[in-house]
């Protein structure tokens, strides 16, 4: 074996594609060939360096600039027709043999359903904020803002807001009955981008960064898009109909999924963590699967 072949085999070994006999040959070459032993050591150091290459941070506002660029050069981006948030699922009804009494009973049921529809629709339309860069939330407990203010009760949370839980008890932030955060003590998080869909009323927290501490997320609003994206310095998490917890400490992010699944975006790969699993992400790019996550609701 010459040194060039040894180098090729080493590259194969980095990719886990070396056969046992090739490994034996490579080891034998390394023991006997002093000429390339330094080079092979450098290859290993080089490979270790590649594993630590950090992901590039996307410049702030790039997404908006992309949309503006496409709107300017690709034609007008049409907005979709308003979605019917109360759309009934398609159900195959069995054929019914209706009697006069049955028709009356069905009429009563339909009338009740229509009444509930209008009452619910009215309630929701009066409580949702139409568009804008703020969302309405109910804070159970109190959070401190970066400017020293206190958030408590029914309050608007704006894009760019940084909040801290400086108390000793967890604070629950309810954006709707189906989207809640539990902010544990000694936690700081930043709502970089929040808004309400002007047509559906759905709340989006598309960029929430956990600076430190623990935040549990319960998100059951998933329809077409994930309404909440959670990021730390090490990864971005995109959940789907999910209950999960993210803990950020210096150099370590711990994700634990209790329900649904969470997509994890890292520097070099993307993977999913399903219910009952957890994962620890370390600053040098390492990924450690954790033991089974406990069922936990925020």
């Amino acid at each position: 074996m010459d040194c060039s072949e040894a180098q090729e085999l080493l590259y194969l070994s980095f990719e886990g594609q070396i056969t046992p006999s090739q490994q034996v040959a490579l080891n034998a070459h390394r023991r006997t060939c002093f000429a390339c032993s330094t080079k092979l050591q450098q290859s290993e150091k080089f490979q270790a360096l590649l594993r630590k290459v950090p992901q590039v941070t996307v410049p702030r506002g790039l997404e908006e600039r992309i949309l503006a660029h496409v709107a300017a050069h690709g034609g007008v981006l049409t907005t979709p027709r308003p979605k019917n948030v109360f759309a009934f699922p398609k159900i195959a009804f069995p054929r019914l043999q209706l009697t006069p009494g049955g028709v009356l009973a069905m009429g009563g049921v339909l009338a009740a359903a229509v009444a509930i529809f209008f009452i619910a629709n009215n309630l929701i339309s009066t409580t949702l904020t139409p568009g804008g860069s703020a969302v309405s939330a109910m804070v159970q407990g109190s959070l401190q803002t970066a400017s020293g203010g206190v958030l408590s009760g029914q309050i608007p949370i704006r894009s760019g807001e940084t909040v801290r839980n400086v108390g000793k008890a967890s604070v629950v932030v309810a954006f709707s009955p189906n989207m809640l955060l539990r902010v544990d003590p000694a936690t700081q998080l930043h709502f970089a981008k929040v808004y309400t869909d002007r047509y559906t009323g759905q709340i989006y927290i598309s960029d929430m960064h956990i600076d430190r501490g623990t935040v549990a997320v319960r998100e059951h609003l998933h329809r077409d898009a994930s309404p909440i994206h959670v990021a730390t310095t090490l990864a971005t998490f995109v959940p789907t109909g999910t209950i999960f917890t993210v803990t950020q400490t210096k150099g370590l992010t711990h994700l634990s999924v209790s329900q649904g699944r969470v997509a994890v975006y890292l520097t070099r790969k993307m993977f999913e963590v399903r219910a009952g699993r957890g994962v620890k992400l370390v600053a040098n790019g390492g990924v450690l699967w954790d033991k089974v996550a406990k069922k936990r609701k925020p």
Partner: protein
Amino acid sequence: MKRVAGGDGDAFAELVKRYTRMLYNVAYRYDANSAEDLVQETFLRAYQHADTFSGRSKVSSWLYRICVNVCLTAQGKSGAPMADIDEINERELEAKSEELPEKAVERGEAFKALEDGLHSLPSQQRMVFILRELQGLSYGEISDILGINEQAARTNLHRAKRRLQAWLSPLLV
């Protein structure tokens, strides 16, 4: 993608939100100075040609392919070298390792040196290296995205790694 092809602004915004980071990382590693322009152009082409997405590949692979084409085309227009894998003498790169600034070595600025070395590579080697080593794609995906066979992807990667290793050798002692 059907909604994007139908001009659904919200669906396109979701596409942008989901894939900007991925594409920006490719574009930045390919050409840091033009990364933002390259990503904008990628999404513009994706929007304009959304109706051609057949669904046979993943959306991410389709976007990677557009991004790669945008990067290679932009480099061609700018007049920067687009040397083929065999056009550069490996000794040239090995000689360049002597030009690494001493201070960079002292400060251990290995990542910066890696970026510099990456920009010295021929375009195809550079792209294979980015997709495989920095984005973690399989050879199958890379061959699909670049329109080359898997063996060619492997050869490109190994040559790129040999050259970069030679470039970085002062930092790897």
